[in-house]
């Protein structure tokens, strides 16, 4: 298998519930070895998209290919190539972890002889080795979540789709799961849906933000970092010059006085005047004590993208407004 093979291809996906459009023309591709962070506010269409990708829901329009197989035309081959952890881990409380994973391996057509190996491997990767003989119903929420992840990777699928995998875990478990996801990302394609923004920054190669069914942002993590780059500097000077002097520094677009006595210098993203400001400050004895590029957090970008238009209407409003 080529290293850059496209494992997920989504083309022009639409999904309507009555008149409400839950997924509106979503298209993307995911290559082998990539981890895609899938972000969006509640009700944005994240889970619907994932349900369509995994064949739990039929799209109203559009195509989904998993590892080259169409999910509607060749569901069996496509589903054999994917592992899915839905929001609620699909585990049977009346089975032990071992029994459950054995059943999942059988369902996913793991050859009978390979099952114990696959099961032990999945257990080891998800930190379940000590609880194999315990009933799932007696495990804590965090452990049940891990069983859900183990279930998704037991047949070593090409594509792993995880819907909020770290919900309900303690911070140590969250770190372990993130390491696991990073590890999975080396040999599989992973889609990770989450509300937790730092999780995306720490694990994902690419980020997509969906809002009201539409992809409003899709870029690599480096593209995102670029976008997060400052467009302003925070400067603290003990003997500040006239604003006009500062504004005259090449690249500085504006000067703003902040309540705490520091100054904010606006500039274009591509043209960072920090070095020049520092040089002049030293040269002219302005008493420079702080020079910080202001970074936008992922959260700000998220809020900018998803709060830019009017609050999300309930289903059908858009059509009524258009009519």
């Amino acid at each position: 298998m080529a290293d850059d093979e496209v494992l997920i291809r989504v083309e022009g996906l639409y999904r309507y519930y009555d008149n409400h459009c839950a997924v509106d023309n979503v298209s993307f591709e995911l290559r082998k070895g990539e981890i895609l962070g899938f972000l969006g506010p509640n009700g944005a269409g994240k889970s619907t998209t994932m349900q369509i990708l995994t064949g739990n829901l039929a799209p109203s329009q559009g195509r989904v290919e998993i590892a080259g197989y169409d999910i509607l035309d060749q569901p069996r081959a496509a589903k054999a190539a994917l592992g899915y952890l839905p929001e609620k881990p699909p585990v049977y409380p009346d089975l032990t972890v071992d029994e459950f994973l054995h059943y999942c391996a059988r369902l996913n057509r793991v050859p009978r002889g390979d099952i114990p190996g696959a099961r032990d491997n999945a257990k080891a990767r998800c930190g379940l080795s000590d609880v194999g003989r315990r009933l799932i119903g007696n495990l804590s929420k965090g452990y049940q979540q891990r069983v859900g992840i183990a279930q998704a990777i037991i047949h070593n699928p090409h594509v792993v789709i995880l819907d909020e995998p770290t919900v309900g875990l303690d911070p140590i478990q969250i770190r372990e799961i993130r390491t696991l996801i990073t590890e999975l990302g080396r040999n599989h394609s992973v889609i990770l849906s989450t509300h937790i923004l730092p999780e995306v920054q720490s694990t994902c190669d690419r980020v997509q933000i969906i809002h009201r069914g539409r992809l409003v942002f899709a870029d690599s993590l480096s593209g995102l970092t670029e976008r997060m780059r400052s467009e302003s500097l925070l400067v603290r000077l003990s003997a500040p010059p006239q604003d006009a002097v500062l504004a005259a520094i090449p690249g500085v677009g504006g000067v703003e006085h902040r309540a705490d006595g520091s100054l904010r210098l606006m500039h274009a993203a591509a043209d960072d005047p920090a070095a020049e400001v520092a040089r002049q400050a030293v040269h002219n004895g302005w008493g420079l004590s702080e020079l910080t590029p202001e970074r936008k957090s992922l959260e700000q970008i998220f809020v900018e993208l998803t709060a830019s238009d009017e609050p999300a209407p309930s289903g059908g409003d858009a059509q009524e407004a258009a009519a």
Partner: protein
Amino acid sequence: MSATFTIARRELHALFLSPLAWAVLAVIQAIAAYLFLGRVNDFLNVQTMLSRVPNAPGVTDFVVAPLFGSVSIILLMVVPLLSMRMIADERRTGTLTLLLSAPVSMSEIVIGKFLGLFAFLCLMVAMITCMPLSLEAGTHLDLGKLAAGVLGLVLMLGAFAAAGLFMSAMTSQPVVAAVGSFGLLLLLWILSFAGNFGNEALGHVLSYLSLVKHFQGLVKGEVVSTDVVYYVLVIILFLALGIRRLDADRLQR
């Protein structure tokens, strides 16, 4: 096909993990034993009289047919309790997703679940059949008639299971599924004597569609292929409806 049996095994396993299956087996066995002993006792009382009548009913007719008849009525109430959770509960707790995202077709899911429940019901029939079979130690049974009765009971229970599974696929509330399948089965049962609405032809059709009508022949030892085909068709019909209903979940408007 292997996935079908994987699911069937899991369902059978799940039934025995809950106390319900054990309780059902115990209660049904106790009631069947009471009915059986009652019939045997009656037979012993009338045996001398019967021996003087030509073509009198033998022990098989006298014990097995009424026993299986009563058992089928009791199971009409019990099978919905066993089938109610099969799909409804999985839908409610979200574990249906596990099956739907695995490389398994809707038909394999429904048929697998049916086979799991059917295997359990066959086990129950086997346990009940042991009782009349024990008479073989002291007398001669008409084993052909017994076999026909067992076939009738098994087919009837297959129809119960398929209908129950279909109702379970209709909802995400197990109790609603149980009430629904009980109602459905009772309706199919009483079609034969609920009246003909003043229309002779309709009365015939309704009575022909009834579950009981085809059971009576079998339990008397008359294996008629149309009766067997009737039950097989009922099973296929409800399984097909169940598959369609499950598929509709995916399509949802």
